[in-house]
């Protein structure tokens, strides 16, 4: 009885729902046709209008994103764009959610990835559409359209945009002046960095202001490698891991000493124990120097991090003053998902997003060919120029000796190696494993992963 009743109710519900929907749709059709009077216009308005689904994690950019979408929709009224923010600003959560959505066949048009390794594994497993044919159809080669083009297996799976300079040193200029220091030279070294860090450290206990802060990400331990070689800092040219390089070893020891002997850098134990947020630490004046990317420029003007000191920029220190200077460039990779229903329109929108859209959003530097990087960067700080030492930024970006470099490849398994890097370096920096054991374990475990994937 109960079942029959329930079934009846269900049937009732569903049929009711259906008919209601049909009537609504029919009504909409009639009104659309009636309103326009012109059948052709009606067709264009209701029949062809499509909506692109753009999924992002950067909910803090919602306002800037909407400016691009508004400008686009003004030009293309038949192609609407809806941006959805997933993962609450955490790109790892975002990737996990979108992975599952793609597996379930959910329709997504445009997606993003934050790093070469997270993108490589997904490009290799077919989450993204190759973009070559769309570039061809448009009649441009990717290299003519953008300064940096990343290819995986000869194919373009992404448009690289919203670029930043990685591993620059953000300096709290007030603290620099209070310590009686001058702005560092363009070819300053890690030894200089240590002196600066010691000079700017003050206070004790919970009130210590540290001269330096190195974040808890495993790849921060590659800082000494980033500054010494171009391209992907995990691998040497012959494909071997950089964990055996002297720069890697020296930097680990250097970082350990800076944190535990000189006590001039926030100890990793504190960073991890409290899940510290590096933006909070820097903008609230608890640290004087922070190796991070120029993507923090837009945060200088963010009222969440309101502060009144000037932020200056120095390049990543070198091991020796006459070494080649590599400026590593990072950014966001934009993709068209394999489940996209409108890949052509999505591609057109992405081209707009990564060219005309960049100055509209004004939060990152443009990767478009022919656009002045410095001008594009200056647009970011419009409105709070007095909080940024633009001269120091210009000196860094336009340094004639600087060699611009970026990650041009990443094997599928790089994120697994990064996990190993995290674990083993933590053990060393937290004092439970010797440096020799750490390097040995890193090489053994890293090479095991490489072999497994051959």
């Amino acid at each position: 009885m109960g079942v029959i009743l329930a079934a009846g109710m269900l049937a009732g519900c569903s049929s009711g729902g259906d008919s209601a929907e049909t009537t609504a749709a029919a009504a909409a059709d009639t009104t659309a046709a009636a309103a326009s009077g012109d059948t052709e216009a009606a067709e264009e308005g209701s029949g062809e209008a499509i909506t692109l689904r753009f999924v992002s994690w950067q909910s803090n950019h919602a306002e800037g994103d909407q400016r691009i979408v508004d400008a686009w929709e003004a030009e293309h009224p038949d192609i609407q764009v809806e941006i959805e923010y997933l993962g609450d600003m955490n790109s790892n959560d975002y990737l996990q959610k979108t992975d599952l959505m793609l597996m379930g066949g959910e329709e997504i048009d445009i997606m993003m990835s934050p790093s070469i390794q997270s993108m490589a594994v997904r490009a290799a497993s077919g989450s993204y559409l190759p973009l070559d044919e769309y570039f061809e159809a448009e009649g441009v080669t990717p290299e003519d359209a953008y300064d940096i083009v990343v290819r995986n297996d000869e194919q373009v799976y992404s448009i690289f945009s919203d670029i930043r300079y990685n591993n620059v040193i953000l300096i709290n200029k007030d603290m620099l002046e209070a310590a009686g220091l001058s702005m560092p030279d363009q070819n300053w070294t890690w030894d200089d960095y240590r002196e600066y860090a010691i000079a700017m450290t003050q206070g004790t206990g919970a009130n210590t202001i540290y001269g330096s802060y190195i974040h808890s990400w495993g790849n921060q331990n590659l800082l000494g490698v980033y500054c010494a070689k171009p391209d992907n800092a995990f691998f040497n040219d012959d494909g071997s891991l950089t964990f055996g390089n002297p720069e890697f070893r020296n930097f680990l020891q250097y970082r350990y000493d800076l944190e535990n002997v000189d006590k001039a850098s926030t100890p990793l134990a504190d960073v991890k124990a409290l899940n510290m947020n590096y933006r909070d630490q820097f903008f609230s004046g608890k640290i004087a120097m922070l190796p991070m990317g120029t993507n923090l420029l837009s945060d200088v003007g963010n009222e969440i991090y309101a502060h009144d000191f000037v932020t200056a920029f120095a390049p990543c220190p070198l091991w020796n003053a006459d070494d080649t200077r590599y400026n590593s460039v990072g950014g966001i990779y934009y993709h068209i998902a394999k489940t996209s229903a409108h890949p052509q329109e999505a591609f057109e929108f992405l081209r707009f997003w990564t060219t005309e859209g960049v100055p509209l959003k004004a939060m990152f530097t443009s990767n478009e060919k022919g656009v002045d990087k410095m001008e594009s960067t200056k647009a970011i700080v419009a409105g709070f120029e007095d909080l940024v030492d633009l001269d120091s930024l210009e000196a860094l970006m336009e340094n004639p000796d600087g060699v611009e470099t970026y990650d041009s490849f990443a094997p599928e398994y790089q994120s697994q190696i990064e996990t190993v890097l995290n674990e083993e370096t933590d053990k060393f920096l937290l004092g439970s494993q010797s440096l020799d054991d750490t390097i040995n374990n890193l090489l053994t475990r890293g090479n095991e992963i490489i072999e497994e994937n051959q």
Partner: protein
Amino acid sequence: MASMATGSGKAAEKQSMKASTKENITGFLFILPGFVGFVIFILIPVAMSLGLSFTEWNFLKGWGAIEFTGLENFIDLFSDDWFKASMINNLVFTAVTVPALLVLGLIMAEIINRHTYGGKGIRAMIFIPYIASIVAVCTVWQVLLQPSYGPINQFLMSLGIENPPRWLVDERWALAAVMIINIWTQVGYYVAVYMAGLKNVPLDLYEAAAIDGANARQQFLYITVPMVSPTTFFLGIMGIISSFKVFDLISVLTQGGPGNATSVMAYYIYRTAFQDFKMGYACALAWALFVVIFIVTMIQWKYQKNFTNE
């Protein structure tokens, strides 16, 4: 006569069979909604995970990428350091937290029940950590356990301990810290259940024991403990199962680190499946965990009678 009797008997049987079939069908229809749900949401996924545990599958590549690899995943388990570490951590976690919770829970329930005024208020206070958001609880504990100037280590240092443990970031102490936090959050639940159990112990037993000259300790050991043993059994089984599945604390506090010092099975399974994309191996891990929980539970059921006096 005889034939008539058999004839009518057959007819009756036929009719009753019909009735019983009808009854069966009605019965099946009644359980159908629940049964369909069970099949779709539990039985099929469980069977699929068993099937997947014999394969290698990166789920990003879609259904076509499933490759049958036989017993390889299960053989790999034995040479996997993370699996071993996670299993050992799990066993230590269970062996420490469950008995500690049972003992603390019963003693606190007894004290609140018989020896204090305002027991309800105290019970509510002890219960708060259990219902509070685990993320909020973890954040508070992270601050308390901060290694260089957190209140707990400041206190230890003022007692003259020069190098207090660095708790959550110390390879030797991280698991202990997680266990302490787990006990603190869970004990309220144990107290609440024990207090309900204690209400069922007849007061005249205590009176009789007091007349015979038993002191409070003896009353507790020889009356309270045996009388609440069914409750203890229930809490013990549930505690063991849930401690094998502990995930949220680890995920928020340490992410299995430092190194693999606090990795537990549930966290390792999650990591393997959703960060390394090895769905087949993750399923094999999940089945290994299932086997362990299954064995432990079977042992408990076998000795249930000895535990509960029933």
